[in-house]
């Protein structure tokens, strides 16, 4: 008895998202599918201890959920004429010729991912919906991770589902022509989730860390379902960031720069894993910005020290990245790599040119980079001015402490 209960729990954890993804396709509605999923598990708790586990629990849950939903909609549509459409749709489902529901379970999971990350939804709604429907987090868990009120997150999810219904966003994996753009939207959501966990310095760092782990899981799922080079590149990039997570801050929570991190504590297994992924993705010749960023991170990860890093390779990769994405932030990163290869004076010329363009005038890292280069050139007064400017532009506590420390060292 107890063991059956444990099996139901384990099956819920392993299968509930897959079953939900298929039920959404069969029932054509998120809320209806969620209710059906719930009812299917209630039935499982009741029947499995008595009748034993079915041979294929997932198929059992899908068909039970479907029948429960059909039954309920029929009863409800007697009272509610607005359900006539749904009832008609459901009548078609009840027809046994409507197809075997289990044929494309993995496609259903992809459909769910693409729907949750649909560009017609607000960016923050895409994140919340993906975390809840694809990853199975509760509204309260998502709220905790975002340091938000559960009611705010709940409303975001309700509105997103209403938008999916009203805009008739189709539940499908986009076709070949649409795929690159739609995949980019999915990858952006995954990376956003990752960075929320990775860059978090406020709040409960433990729950925020879970967000990165969730993003890596999502990234793996995506690669498994749709091994496009950019999906592979993003997974590699996240693994490479993860591999040095524990060395990014000191025991007392202070920022440790890449050059000063303890490389013996980097996770070599993750690095090797990620390097293989990047190479395979680049070998397709269809790698994009995520692949290039992963390649840059891999060069860093494999270098024995900051000095012994192949900076020429890194500058070359930034050149490629700039061609794909001519953003000033990429240009700034390239300038810092040039400074490592050719010396601080060469880097400073580039940073000053980028700052002169104006877009990064309020970006604290641009001024922090300039300050660092001036410091290395012995231009103390300029360095001090730039650190002060950077300090004025960031509110993040650990970054402020880092900049203040650097500033104090100059006095």
């Amino acid at each position, binding site marked *: 008895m107890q063991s059956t209960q444990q099996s139901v729990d384990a099956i819920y954890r392993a299968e509930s998202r897959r079953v939900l993804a298929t039920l959404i396709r069969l029932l054509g509605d998120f809320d209806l599918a969620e209710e059906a999923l719930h009812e299917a598990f209630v039935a499982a708790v009741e029947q499995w201890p008595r009748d034993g586990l079915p041979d294929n629990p997932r198929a059992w849950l899908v068909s039970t959920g479907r029948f429960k939903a059909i039954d309920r909609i029929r009863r409800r549509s007697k009272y509610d004429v607005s359900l006539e459409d749904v009832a008609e749709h459901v009548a078609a489902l009840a027809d046994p010729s409507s197809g075997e529901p289990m044929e494309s379970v993995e496609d259903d999971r992809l459909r769910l991912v693409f729907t949750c990350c649909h560009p017609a939804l607000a960016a923050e709604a895409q994140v919340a919906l993906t975390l809840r429907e694809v990853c199975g987090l509760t509204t309260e*868990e998502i709220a905790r991770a975002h340091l938000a009120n559960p009611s705010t997150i709940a409303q975001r999810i309700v509105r997103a589902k209403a938008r999916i219904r009203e805009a008739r966003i189709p539940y499908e994996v986009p076709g070949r022509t649409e795929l690159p753009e739609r995949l980019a939207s999915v990858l952006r959501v995954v990376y956003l989730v990752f960075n929320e966990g990775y860059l978090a310095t406020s709040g409960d760092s433990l729950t925020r860390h879970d967000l990165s782990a969730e993003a890596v899981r999502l990234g793996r799922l995506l690669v498994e379902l749709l091994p496009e080079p950019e999906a592979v590149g993003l997974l590699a990039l996240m693994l490479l960031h993860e591999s040095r997570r524990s060395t990014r801050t000191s025991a007392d929570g202070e920022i440790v720069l890449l050059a000063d991190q303890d490389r013996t504590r980097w996770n070599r297994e993750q690095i090797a894993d990620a390097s293989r992924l990047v190479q395979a993705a680049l070998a397709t010749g269809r790698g994009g910005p995520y692949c290039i960023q992963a390649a840059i991170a891999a060069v860093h990860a494999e270098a024995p020290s900051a000095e012994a890093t192949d900076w020429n390779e890194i500058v070359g990769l930034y050149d490629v990245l700039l061609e794909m994405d001519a953003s000033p932030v990429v240009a700034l990163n390239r300038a810092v790599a040039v400074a490592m290869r050719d010396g601080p004076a060469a880097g400073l010329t580039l940073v000053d040119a980028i700052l002169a363009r104006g877009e990064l005038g309020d970006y604290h890292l641009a001024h922090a980079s300039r300050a660092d280069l001036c410091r290395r050139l012995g231009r103390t007064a300029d360095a001090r001015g730039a650190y002060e400017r950077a300090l004025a532009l960031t509110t993040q506590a650990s970054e402020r402490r880092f900049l203040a420390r650097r500033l104090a060292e100059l006095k």
Partner: protein
Amino acid sequence: MRYLCLLVWDEEKLASLPPAEEERLNAAHLEVNEDLIASGHFIEAEPLEPAANTTCVRVRGGRATVTDGPFAETKEQVAGFYLIEARDLNEAIQVATRLPSAAWCTVEVRPCRQLRVGGLARPSSSKSAHNPFTPA
């Protein structure tokens, strides 16, 4: 998790429902209640007498005082409640959406909290069972 859904009605509107309408509403609630029992969401629900029938009890300094309620003369009053079990707030909202009164009144969905004793979160009574599909 447990959530309390408070059915906040304009009391005048509730009192002036045509009898046939009220009959339909009541029947629909009874039907939904059975659905919610079957789905495991239902813990308890009751409709309440009008707020004018409230009695307020306070014990101060060991002395009980009893007065008429309510303290505030507002049109909107709690006219009934549902105590439900749901996986998360969005599931609770979904349940609230299904309540027939939601088409007439405001349903306030409030998460229940746990009592902490000696640093440990405790169920509020031995009757508070744990839903298997709610994360611990």
